[in-house]
């Protein structure tokens, strides 16, 4: 039942290409999408536009290019439809409707999402699942959207028909229409049919609830404890002895040899919610109320997400970054993280500043006397691509600015500005830069 997103990816690329052509014509992205929807119609419009804008020879070239692109687009969409006919629906009418709705949905989303996807990182599209929980949700959602889509079309048509057919006309004269007070049979019908639909929806829903929520934890699973803090994530790997922050590393899971990751979700302060849309639905992190969730990503890469439950001033910049690594990469990452902090004699001055100031009250650097727990563990800070829970890239300048004045990057962050002198500041930054 899984509609393979491969064609969607192709589709997205295609849209990008078309968009480039469009931008050479100085037209907006919205129109590009519109043109793929009504491909044939759009072709005419493209020809029309190209005819108005470019010089004759350029015009011709653009027209040819766009024509091939759009025709390719049409065949892509057709392929997509074929792939989707794998939908396990018995009734042909249902299937066609489901396909149509799906088609519109996927193409719209692929269009919008293609704005987002870089080469290696994934977007946050719930219809581009890469892990079992997210996939079973996407499958259920297709089914639910199909059913509600049918209801929508039927009722919408009924209302529209009534409005047009029974509108008051000038030729009516002043007579009142026949006064009808009700009909038991009809009313019974529109009570029973919805009840049947509800039963079907409920059974489909309950099946997925059970499958996702009550999945047993296999022996080879990776265990991670995720702790929500005002406004950052702490990740602990109890079996591996690793503590890190904000960037979660998990192994890719081969369907033949599943290595899912099971997260225990805790909170150190207010409520948070762990949401990486392409890997799983969200689950809240609530103090005094441990939760559990799991995922088994089947593709490597970086998956994005963020805190979804309002947790305070900087809720918006509590971003999530999940790196799904191949088995070797993950093992290498684990080995690196298990080491204590690098001791670099060149950075001793910075380390002194760090340990003399309040830095060490909140941050931990393994192997040193810094053992605070209120802020992120910094033992392997330089192995992370971002700082401040994804609010800024981990570069020299950002690091310096962050230590100098956290509120410049993240106003409302709980890290205080330490008001270090410039030499001290530079020393601490160089110390940080040795922690890889």
């Amino acid at each position, binding site marked *: 039942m899984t509609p393979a997103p491969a064609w969607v990816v192709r589709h997205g690329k295609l849209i990008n290409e078309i968009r480039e052509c469009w931008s050479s014509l100085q037209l907006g992205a919205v129109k590009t999408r519109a043109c793929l929807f009504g491909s044939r119609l759009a072709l005419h419009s493209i020809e029309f536009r190209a005819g108005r804008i470019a010089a004759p020879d350029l015009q011709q070239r653009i027209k040819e290019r766009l024509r091939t692109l759009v025709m390719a687009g049409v065949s892509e969409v057709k392929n997509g439809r074929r792939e989707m006919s794998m939908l396990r629906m018995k009734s042909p009418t249902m299937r066609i409707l489901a396909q149509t709705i799906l088609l519109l949905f996927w193409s719209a989303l692929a269009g919008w999402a293609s704005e987002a996807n870089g080469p290696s990182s994934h977007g946050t599209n719930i219809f581009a699942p890469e892990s079992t929980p997210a996939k079973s949700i996407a499958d259920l959602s297709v089914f639910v959207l199909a059913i509600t889509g049918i209801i929508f079309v039927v009722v919408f048509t009924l209302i529209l028909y009534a409005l047009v057919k029974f509108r008051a006309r000038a030729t009516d004269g002043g007579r009142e229409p026949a006064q009808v007070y009700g009909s038991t049979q009809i009313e019974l019908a529109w009570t029973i049919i919805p009840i049947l639909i509800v039963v079907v929806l409920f059974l489909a829903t309950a099946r997925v609830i059970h499958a996702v929520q009550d999945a047993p934890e296999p022996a080879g699973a990776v265990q991670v404890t995720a702790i929500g803090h005002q406004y950052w994530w702490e990740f602990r790997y109890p079996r591996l002895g690793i503590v890190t922050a904000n960037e979660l590393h998990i192994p890719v899971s081969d369907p033949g040899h599943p290595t899912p990751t099971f997260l225990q979700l805790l909170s150190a302060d207010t409520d948070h919610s762990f949401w990486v849309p392409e890997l799983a*639905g969200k689950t809240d992190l609530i103090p005094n109320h441990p939760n559990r969730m799991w995922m088994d990503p089947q593709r490597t890469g970086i998956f994005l997400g963020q805190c*979804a439950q309002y947790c305070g001033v900087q809720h918006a910049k509590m971003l999530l970054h999940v790196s799904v690594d191949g088995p070797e990469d993950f093992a290498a990452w684990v080995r690196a993280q298990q080491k204590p902090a690098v001791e670099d004699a060149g950075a001793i001055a910075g380390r002194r500043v760090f340990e003399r100031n309040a830095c060490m009250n909140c941050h931990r650097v393994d192997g040193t006397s810094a053992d605070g727990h209120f802020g992120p563990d910094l033992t392997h800070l330089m192995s992370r691509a971002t700082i401040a829970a994804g609010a800024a890239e981990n570069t020299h300048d950002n690091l310096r600015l962050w230590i100098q004045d956290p509120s410049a990057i993240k106003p409302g962050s709980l890290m205080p500005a330490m008001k270090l002198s410039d030499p001290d500041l530079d020393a601490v930054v160089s110390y940080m830069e040795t922690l890889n």
Partner: protein
Amino acid sequence: MASDAITVPVGQIEARPWVDELHQWLTTVDHKRLGILYMFSALLFLVIGGVEALIIRIQLMHSHNNFVSPEVFNRMFTMHGTTMIFFVAMPVLFGFANYLIPLMIGARDMAFPRLNAFSFWLSFLGGLLLYFSFLGGSGLYGAGNAPDVGWWAYAPLGARAFSPGHSSDYWTLSLLVSGFGSIGTAINIIATVLCMRCPGMKLSRMPLLAWLNLVMGGMVLIAITPLSAAQIMLLIDRYLGGHFFDTQAGGSAVLWMHFFWIFGHPEVYILVIPAFAFLSEIIPVFSRKPIFGYPVMVAATVAIGLVSTSVWAHHMFTIGMNSYANSFFAITTMAVGVPTGIKIFNWIGTMWGGKIQFKVPMLFCIGFLFQFLIAGLTGIIQSCVPFDWQLSLSYFVVAHFHYVIVGGILFAIFGAFYYWYPKMSGRMLSERLGKWHFWLFLIGFHLTFDVMHIPGLLGMPRRIYTYEPGRGWDTLNFIITIGAFIQAIAILVFVANLIISYFKGARAGNDPWDAWTLEWSISSPPPAYNFATVPTVASRRPLWDLKHPKDPDSRYE
């Protein structure tokens, strides 16, 4: 009938100075004046809440925008939500209930006129308290200002550790105070409907508006009570060393969620049932037919009322309830769809075979039908728990409940304004301005809230003051913001219409719509005593009987 008025000796009618007039309004216990006061305060707060919405929308117009600080943004969405629910939607609906119920059931006032006045002023005081926080409060980060804990103030964010100062206390107190006002009004509505009906008006002959408000009153009693209890518990936590919701001392954050949503979900139906009531009065008149399936409409409303008290935890599918609890709340939530569906079908049945007149009140009701259909279906979508694990707390939810509250309830309220304004003021609202209002608002609404579903599907959480570029959210948010401004313009047209028509509108006469319920039998605006002679009714449509003496309804009921 009651159309004859009591004659007042000429000497008693004289122009009063405005202070005297103001005094009359402030001390009134007349249900009509209180109704208008409710609506007036609601419109005032609607404009304030609308400005807050625009600030939110400007900030989200593109990624990494710096129009307001995160602190201000958090206050804005907290105040916007609280204002719109407690100080716009509820008061305006209470206002209509107050104004219309006695007129529709042939009574001279509500059952408890002074309780009525007391309840209104409590609600209004609640609103003032909330806004006083801008002067007297201080929030999450300590500096003085409005509450910023979100409109549901999840524990432990509302605890003193995370919300020092007094801003969230203003939120607590204002909800507590206005909650008492709501309870007073609910008691009054129930007592009025049950005890004050004119001779002949059996429960089975009552206009649907009265029936639906009766159910609404019952639900207010059920829903507001736990909210008030929770607010008191929160105050105990904050000031008397209690630990109900104090997670650092073993309290439960989840307990607060349950308390809040066992209020919060019935609240949605408290708002939407009076909206259903407007449709059930307006659609028949402009289709020129009686409501289709009156008994089923009543039964469906009661069913919605009952079932809606057992669906609250569908707001909490992401908090880690076990699979049985999740399944239970999924089925109850889906079940609400059945009686709601019946209502939509019965309205279609009412229009079917009628002669539909597309006057402005009807236009708004038609808008309601289409939009509430979509809102209901996205609601069903979210009752599918696993799907909701993705959609919950995202912009999809924000789009969904604005579809219910704006696309549904607010459209019905606008319809009600256009329909009953002539009765209240004696003047017709301008049809031309009304159509401008309708079409502008419709376009703005769809630009904003249709598009808003998509960023939710693309992973955009709600309540974020800014977002990262490159996630495909920028264009969408820009369109949403444009739509918000179009809606704001439409609201200005509406307010202009209210004011201009008050002075220059066409005279309405007693019965401008050729309608069938009792309020149209008396002058516009009605005299203080409503009915000179208390009417006697023989059917659900007393004025139909009067206008068609040879073919009265009473023969068929």
